[in-house]
């Protein structure tokens, strides 16, 4: 967990730097398309993750994180 916090703090620190976004807001039309969501339908994704967790021993880091929620 300490490692995670260190990475977070490092990234937050870097965010203060003036890095020029290489994909401009007006170039993000394709990225904003609903088909470019990792998780368009949270209920459906949640259920299929449940199936995998029930039938397989591995758990954690399932899809549906970091994007999606139909949020785009």
């Amino acid at each position, binding site marked *: 967990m300490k490692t*995670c916090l260190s990475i977070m703090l490092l990234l937050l620190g870097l965010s203060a730097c003036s*890095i020029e976004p290489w994909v401009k807001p007006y170039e993000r039309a394709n990225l904003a*398309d609903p088909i470019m969501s990792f998780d368009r339908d949270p209920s*459906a994704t949640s259920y299929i993750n449940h199936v995998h967790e029930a039938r397989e021993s591995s758990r*954690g880091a399932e899809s549906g994180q970091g994007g*999606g929620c139909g949020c785009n």
Partner: protein
Amino acid sequence: MVVTKASSIFSAISPGQPAGKRPGRFQWGLLAVGVLGFCVPLMAAVLPEDRADFLYHSYSGGGLVVNGPSILARKKIGKSVSMWGKYYVDSLTSATIDVVSAASEYHEERIEKSVGVDYLHDKSTLSLGYTNSAENDFVANTVNFGISHSLFGDLTTVSLGYTRGLDDVTSSVDPNFSESAERSKYRLGISQVLTKNMLMGMTFETVTDEGHLESPYRRVRFLDTSAATGVAYQGEEYPETRTSHALSISALYYLPYRAAIKAETRLFTDTWGVNASMYELGYVHPWKQHWIFELRYRAYQQDQADFYSDMFNRISEFNYHARDKELSTLNTSSIGLGASYEFGDKSWRFIDKGSVNLMYDRYQIDYLNFRNELAEGYAPGTEPMYSQTADVVRFFVSLWY
């Protein structure tokens, strides 16, 4: 033998036992909160859309049938707060290989209730969620906290999450049985815009368990020359701690003719000796104005837990022993199809738009050291390996408002 009372969603019970649970199933609460309460938008720090999903789910495979409804709704309050709630039911009927060798079909129900809130401040989103999952002999309570932050001109989203779960485990056949388990889950996620047509995501997650982690029902089998069948049974015994690490990397690429391909891999290891890998490829293809079709293929492979065996040589051969087929060496492959139809427009009074969706997945699960003990004409421990197919259906209606 008739099962007096059974339990557990998607669980299977063991020979000589009425019904059983499998380790890991209680993490459904953790999973639900993780997926629903810790979702963050990819492109920028914005709150999720107001929407409601009405889902019917069905799993049928290996003698197990699970189905039920799920309702999920989100609603913004002001400009900075979004609240969500979920109600989910698993209605289970089981006569799996673990059951039919010693017991009869059983029925049960699990009800899960979740609530959560997301708070947006500048480029950061704070999330808090709570889930209660209740069965007749198993209660799980889970809380989750998450934070995500958008940076580098909204090209990168970093998220951290912590989940804590407390389980109360009882037995439907032993009123004196009462155990508990505690779980913690730590998650780091990074989403990255690579180009104007490509996204990548990476998630690393560590889960720790402590407490009663085995089934109170399931048993292992061992060779016993004094028994008429040559086989006898004893209860499972698992280590009381488990720590696992999982890393997933996924990518989405926008094709020139408005379609998308998705690739994902996930690697897993834990202190029980289970190592696993998963690969998935998907293709999304819109058609005309209202339709979206999907096709996906998923492959999964895992190695057995150190203390798993299909047949032990004698009673209490080792300190720890398990015969849960989900802890055996196995391969899973699946093909999935999906179709979505979008309807409505802003002219509707309360609803901006909606969609009707049907998704179907076909699974083939091959167990490489879990034998089909129901096979006739074989000496104990020499039966053919077990395999099963499963059909998973998700039908749901989504409304945005």
